[in-house]
C-alpha cells in the first residue's frame, strides 16, 4: 500500500434540524492512498455529500479523527481550513461554479489569488493548467461562450492550478450529456495516470466504473469498499462516438428518403 493521504477514523456528523438530530455520518473509517482514483457512491441521504463536505474541509466532523496528508484538520479554525482548501485540495462541482463575465484564465487564477502568487506566475500557471485540460485556445473565452464540457474542464483546470494533493469532484458529470461525461472522465483518468489523487462523488454506476476503487455509502456508513478494474474512458468514448455517428447516418438516410419526392417536385 502507498502513502495514506486521507485518513478518516470513526468520523460522525450530527445535524440539528430543529429538535430532531440527523445522523448524517455514523462512524466512517476510511483511508485513501496517494495516487488512488476512488468513486464514492450512494443514493441521496446516504451521507456521501456530508462525507464530501468533511473531506473538503468545508465542514467539521462531530467526532472522530480526520487527517489530511498526515495533518489532523478536525480542530482547525475557519482560516486554517481555508488555507487547506486553498493549498491541499482542488474542487470540481456539478454546476461548474465559474464566475460569469470572467475569462477562463481569470477563473483558473482565482485560487492563486488567495495564495498570494504574483501576477506573472499566476498567468503562467493558469495557462499551463488550461493547456493540461486541452483548452489552451480558449484562454480568453467567457463561460457563456463555452459548452458545458468546456466549462467543466475550466473548472478542473482551476482545481489543478494549485497542484493540490487531492482533487474532490462532486457529481462532476451531473450536468453533462453522456458523451461529454465520458470526455470529462477521460480527463480524470489522464490526471490519475499522472499521479493525482482523485475522490469522485457520483450516483451513476457508469461514471463510477471509470474509477479504480468504489466506496458505497448507505445510512451514514461505508457499506462496500472494493478495488476494481477501471473501464478505459478513451475506449468508451470511441464507442459512444461511433454509435452516435451511426445513429446520425441512419437518421440522415431516412431524412433523405423523405425529402427525395419534394426535391423532384421543386426540380420540375
Amino acid at each position, binding site marked *: 500500500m502507498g502513502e495514506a493521504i486521507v485518513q478518516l477514523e470513526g468520523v460522525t456528523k450530527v445535524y440539528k434540524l430543529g429538535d430532531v438530530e440527523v445522523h448524517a455520518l455514523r462512524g466512517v473509517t476510511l483511508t485513501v492512498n496517494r495516487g488512488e482514483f476512488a468513486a464514492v457512491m450512494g443514493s441521496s441521504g446516504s451521507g456521501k455529500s456530508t462525507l464530501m463536505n468533511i473531506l473538503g474541509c468545508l465542514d467539521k466532523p462531530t467526532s472522530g479523527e480526520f487527517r489530511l496528508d498526515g495533518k489532523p484538520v478536525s480542530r482547525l479554525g475557519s482560516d486554517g481550513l*481555508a488555507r487547506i482548501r486553498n493549498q491541499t485540495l482542488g*474542487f470540481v462541482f456539478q454546476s461548474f461554479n465559474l*464566475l460569469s463575465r470572467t475569462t477562463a484564465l481569470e477563473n483558473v487564477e*482565482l485560487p492563486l489569488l*488567495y*495564495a498570494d502568487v504574483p501576477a506573472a506566475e499566476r498567468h503562467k500557471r493558469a495557462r499551463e493548467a488550461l493547456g493540461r485540460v486541452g483548452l489552451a485556445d480558449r484562454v480568453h473565452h467567457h463561460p457563456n461562450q463555452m459548452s458545458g464540457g468546456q466549462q467543466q474542464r475550466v473548472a478542473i483546470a482551476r482545481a489543478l492550478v*494549485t497542484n493540490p494533493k487531492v482533487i474532490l469532484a462532486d457529481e462532476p458529470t451531473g450536468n453533462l450529456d453522456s458523451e461529454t461525461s465520458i470526455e470529462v472522465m477521460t480527463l480524470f483518468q489522464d490526471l490519475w495516470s499522472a499521479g493525482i489523487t482523485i475522490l469522485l462523488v457520483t450516483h451513476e454506476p457508469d461514471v463510477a466504473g471509470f474509477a479504480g476503487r468504489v466506496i458505497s455509502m448507505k445510512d451514514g456508513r461505508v457499506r462496500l469498499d472494493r478495488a476494481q478494474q477501471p473501464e478505459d474512458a478513451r475506449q468508451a468514448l470511441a464507442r459512444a462516438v461511433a454509435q452516435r455517428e451511426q445513429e446520425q447516418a441512419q437518421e440522415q438516410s431516412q431524412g433523405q428518403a423523405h425529402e427525395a419526392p419534394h426535391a423532384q417536385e421543386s426540380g420540375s
Partner: protein
Amino acid sequence: MTGLQTIRIAGRALMRNKLRSFLTALGIIIGVGAVIAMVAIGDGAKAMVEQSYAAMGSNLLVIMSGTTTSGGAHGGFGSMPTLTWDDLTAIQREVPAVQYVAPQLRTNAQVITEEQNWSTSVTGTTADYFALRSWPTASGNTFGQSDIDGATKVVVMGQTVVDKLFGPSADPVGQMVRIRNIPFQVVGVLARKGQSPSGQDYDDGVFIPSTTFMTKIQGGLKKFLQGTIMASARSADATAKAQRQITGLLRERHNLPKGTDDDFSIRNLAELASAQQEGTKTLTTLLASIAAVSLLVGGVGIMNIMLVSVTERTREIGLRMAVGARRFDILTQFLVEALTLSSAGGIVGIASGLGVAHQLAAHFNWPLLVRPQIIVIAVGFSAVVGIGFGLYPARKASRLDPIEALRFE
C-alpha cells in the same frame, strides 16, 4: 491577497452592473454635492454681510444725545440735546481707544443744478468723517480743517447724487450746486460704497463742513451738538473698551451722579454686525445639516445595494471560500466595493457641488468661497458612510456557510 487586487476585483464587480453602481453612487454624489454647495452658499452669504458691514465702517460707535419728555410723550434718543461740541473734542483728546471722532449733523434738502434737482440727505461733518468710515474719494478731495474753520461752501457728493444730477459718468468736481438756495462748490466725489445691511443707499447723500451746516443750512444751538457723534475704535477688539471709556468720560463731563441713567446712548455697530454674522452662520449650519441628511440617505442606498449584491453573489462567495478565500478576504472585498462606490460618488459630488456653488455665486453676484476643510470633511464623511453602511453587508457575506452558499440557487 494584496490591496491592489482587492480594489481591482471590487472595480470589476461594480463595472458588471454599471447602471446600478452609478445610481447607487448618485445618492452619495447628491449628498456630497449638496453639502459642498450649501456650505459654499452659506459662506458666500456670510462674506456678503461682512462686506456690507465693512462698507458701513469698521469698529464704529454712534453716540446719541438723550431723550426729552414733553406732556407725557417721550421723545426718542437725540430729542434732547445733551452732547456738546466740547464733548466731541474731549472724546478726541482723552479717550485712548478712540481713533477718529466726527460729528454727524443731518437733514434732508433739495440739491439743485442748472438742469436737475434731487432731494437727498445733507450731512454736516468734519474731515475725519471720511477716514472714520474708510471712505475714499473717486475724484477730487474731501474738505479739510481750513474748510471747517472758514465754514466754506464746499460739498462732497455721493455717487448716487452725482448720477442723478450730472449723469452716471460725469465728473462734477469744480461745478456749482445749490442747497437751500445757497451755492456750493463740488470739491470731491466719494467712491461707491453700496447698500447698508438694511438696504439704505450710502451713496445717496452729500457732505458739507459742520460749521457751514450750522450757519447756512440749519441754525445750531451753538454749544450743543444737534446730531450724533461717530467714533471709531482703534481695533475691533477695542470697541467695547472705547464704549466704556466714552461712557465714563461723558458721565463725568455731564456731572451725572452714580445711580442715575446716562443722558446719552452709545450704539456699537460691531456688535450688530457680529449678531448678523451669527445669523448667517446658523443658516449655513442648517443648510449643511439638511444636506448631510441626504448624504446619510445615500449611505442607506449603498447598504441596500450591497445587501442585494451579497444575496445575488452567494454562490460566488461560496466558491471563493471553497478555493481558499478567508472570511477576512470576503469581508474586505465587499467593504472595498462599498468604499469604492462611496468615494467615487464623493469625488464626483465634490466636482458637481463646486459647479453648483460657482453657478449660484455668479447668479447672486456673491464671492465664491470654498473652504478646503469642507472638501476634506465631505470626502472623509463619504468614506465613513461607505465603511459604515458597507460593513453590515460585508460581514453578512463573510459569515456565510460555504456549503450553504454553494448550494444557493
